[in-house]
């Protein structure tokens, strides 16, 4: 599904070139749940952003479903964001001015889904995530775990093929973190490909495979043996 070949990411300052990623090769198959780990500054988030088409690699090739994603235009990126990729962030990034219902509904609006169908889809998800009672609340009225739950709902409402999570539990305490991780695991079992960035060894165990990144290089890449 995803194929990265010799991906470089660097910034040029006046006298030197600073590498964030250096020659990263990575292949992710459909149905996998990959946890990218590594110390601060290793380039985990940058790698995730490149995969999510939020950032561009400085060099190398990136194939998404065998399409050369390193060559696509801005407009196509929007199309990928609409239909193939969902995001979850550490800071949740809900829209403060919209309530729970409306936040979840937003991606469907951009996809041009009809009102009735949208209603059904959102209602379905609210039900599934047990947040029907909260649908009229605004993000500031929710706890962190609930906000992340809404963010997950928003990310998957368009049934994307790929879900990218940048430290989804980073702003949550452990109980809420576990709740979110079990949810991700469940989604993965239902067939969704997930790539997450995490510092948390325990939460990495929820996935099927761990990629360790150090100083922009892939240091280790191994499957999770006893998945929790």
């Amino acid at each position, binding site marked *: 599904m995803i194929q990265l070949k010799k991906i470089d990411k660097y910034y040029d300052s006046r006298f030197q070139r600073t590498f964030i990623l250096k020659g990263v090769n990575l292949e992710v198959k459909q149905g996998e749940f990959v946890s990218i780990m590594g110390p601060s500054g290793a380039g985990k988030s940058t790698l995730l952003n490149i995969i999510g088409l939020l950032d561009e690699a400085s060099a190398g090739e990136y194939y998404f479903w065998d399409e050369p994603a390193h060559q696509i235009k801005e407009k196509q990126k929007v199309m990928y964001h609409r239909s193939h990729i969902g995001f979850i*962030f550490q800071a949740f990034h809900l829209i403060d*001015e919209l309530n729970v219902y409306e936040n979840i*509904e*937003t991606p469907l609006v*951009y996809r041009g889904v009809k009102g009735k169908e949208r209603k059904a889809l959102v209602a379905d998800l609210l039900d599934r995530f047990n947040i029907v009672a909260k649908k009229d609340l605004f993000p500031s009225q929710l706890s962190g775990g609930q906000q992340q739950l809404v963010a997950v709902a928003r990310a998957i409402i368009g049934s994307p093929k790929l879900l990218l999570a940048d430290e989804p539990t980073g702003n949550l305490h452990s109980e809420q973190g576990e709740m979110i991780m079990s949810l991700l695991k469940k989604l993965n079992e239902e067939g969704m490909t997930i790539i997450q960035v995490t510092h948390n060894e325990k939460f990495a165990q929820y996935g099927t495979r761990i990629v360790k990144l150090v100083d922009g290089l892939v240091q280790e890449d191994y499957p999770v043996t006893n998945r929790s």
Partner: protein
Amino acid sequence: MNFLHFKNSIRFLLKKKSYLLINILGLGIGIAAFLILFIYVYNDFTYNHFNKNLENIYRVREGKGEQTKGLLLAEMLKQIPEVENGTRIFDWDGYRLAYEDVASPENVHYVDTGFFSVFSFPFIEKGTGDHIKEKYNAVVSKDFAERFFGNESAIGKKLQVQFGNNYLTVNGVVDIPDNSSVKFDIVTSYETGESISPWVKQVHDWYNTFSMTYVLLKSGTKPESIYDKMQQIAEANFLTGENKKPEMNLLAFKNYHSEQESNRTLIIILGVIAIGILSIAMVNFINLTITNSLGRTKEIGVKKVVGAGKGFLIRQIMTESLMVSFIALLLGVLLANIFLPQFNQLYDTRLHFSFTQNRLLMPVLVFIWLLVGLLSGTIPAVYLARMGSMDSLRGQAIKNGKVGMSKYSLVVVQFAIAIALISGTFLVQKQIRFMINQDPKFDKENVVVAELSGWEFKDLEAASLKYKRIAEDLESSPFVESVCFSQCTPGNYNHNYNTFYTEGGSDVESIHLRKAYVGRNYFKTFGIKLLDGEGFSDETRNYERNLVLNKKAMETLGYGSVGDQILHESVRTGTANKIIGEVEDFAYQGAQYEMQPVAHIFTEQENYTNWSYLCVKSKPGTSLQVVELLKNEWKTTQPESALSFFFAEDKLNEQYREYEKIKQIITWFSLVAIVLSCIGLFALSSYAISRRIKEIGVRKVNGAKVGEVIALLNSDFLRWVAISFVIAVPISWYALNRWLEGFALKTNLSWWIFALAGVLALGIALLTVSWQSWRAATRNPVEALRYE
């Protein structure tokens, strides 16, 4: 546009209520000020446009002379085929008109029957036949009809002329547009006029020039093409001999207002001010909107990530700015409607906010709306839509660092204007107070003046006796010191001048004197100090052809003392007038005018109704009793007419009213300028502070106190206000000096006027920025530094 986005926009806007309010208020005030000036300028530019024949109406002139010989038009119509129609207008006659119990002295215009063909006055009511063709038929204005007949139909109503058996029959009511150069209360035909006032016929000959003449030329006729024929008529009838011949010419009526009545320069200045105010308000609005929308980068980033296209985002931001500017527009229209009546009162205009009367209004409003809405939307929309998703998610739209000089220049200009206007307000106020506090050198407190209205009386003999008796009654009252009749009062002198020739012993051969006709005891009654000779106060003496001059006149003549000098009026051999007294240079006119040489001419009237004023000097502190006394006299002797009176200083102070108007208008504009510059500063400071959030955080972490941070931020802005002050002072000093030159007696342009204006501007600026500085300074530095 989806309803969801609409909700999103509204919630986003409402979240920052203070921004929204300031932004809408600023643009609203700007638009209101612009609209009022725009309506005023438009009204001026469309003067007389209601006349369908405007292109072909011309006013006949003899050289530069505005009035023409009374017989000219008939001759032109006869001899010049290009002249299709025409009318004379004669406005020198007036008398009492009465309908049932309403009566008042009216200025009656006489016109030819072509009047209503040349001009297209819109009729509200039409009678039978041809308006005024039938003798004694008259057409009245809407105001006149309301005054006399209230809500009743005016057609067929008969107005009694004076107290005689002549009646004018109303045969039409017109609604004269406010921007018409030709205005009247009541018009009737020359034929009627000549019957009522036979002298009218006498002054319409080939010698006198009492009437105005308008002609309607055939379409396509060049006015110059008939000048020769006009000249021939003139030469055949009145331009005889070898003396200078005025050239007959035509003034296009469409240019009449701009060339003769209005001050085109002023209109253009007002137009420039209007556009200036509007552009400043718009730039502020755009700046503030941009600054504000930079705070929503995160929201934009999220939307991009979940799949919003560029078009979507741009449309959303555009809709928002169009929405906000529309509300501002509505507010502007509302404010303009509220303040237009006040403006009308100040400027004695009758402007209306009407889309039908002012056809440009709607397009201009739409233009302003689109311009502001699209500009304030486009810049942030394009900017935000283009930004990388990750950058916007991190909220890094605002680069750190200080704001460049060019951004400040606008605020500097705005504050310079505000400071100049504030100092102008102070100076005008100071000058007015200075003039009012001048010693007028007459008794301004104890003299009560009753206005006499002789036109009211049918039996003038009886009325005269009444006035005489009132004067005698008053004189015998213990409260009254002295009584006099007069044709003028201080502050109320006619512009009536003549040349007087001296007989020798004088520095000058002749002197130009302002003439004032007064009765016995005038100087005594007004408490005007006599410097030499006597002042018409001896009851037994006949003062015929005697003069009392003011000091200025005596100085000009160079006479050391009165000494019964003789002055001949008009020509060297003219009537001899004896100077018998000299009075102080008292304030017979406002302090803004140069003191002139004035001659008071003793007058006696056989009939007391010919006097204009009855002046009564009360003993100190009893002026209210005297007013009561006057009221009683009026009630007992002439219950049918109401007493109208004033105190001696009132008329003088009326001359300063014009400056009160100037003060008010400057005050209003200062307010607008202050509000706009504050909004400009607010927009700029919030932008500048948002760029320094990190710096503030770092300073605080390193131990800066809140007060120190506020001082740091404020000093940065106040520096620019100080620069505006430096720019504003010389400009306004020059302008105000020029303004003061127009006054004979002027106050000094004290330094404190500018200091006060500067301090005021500084104070307002401080208030504007302090709130934001305080908010920025009290923020938790952790927030600012979290993502670094």
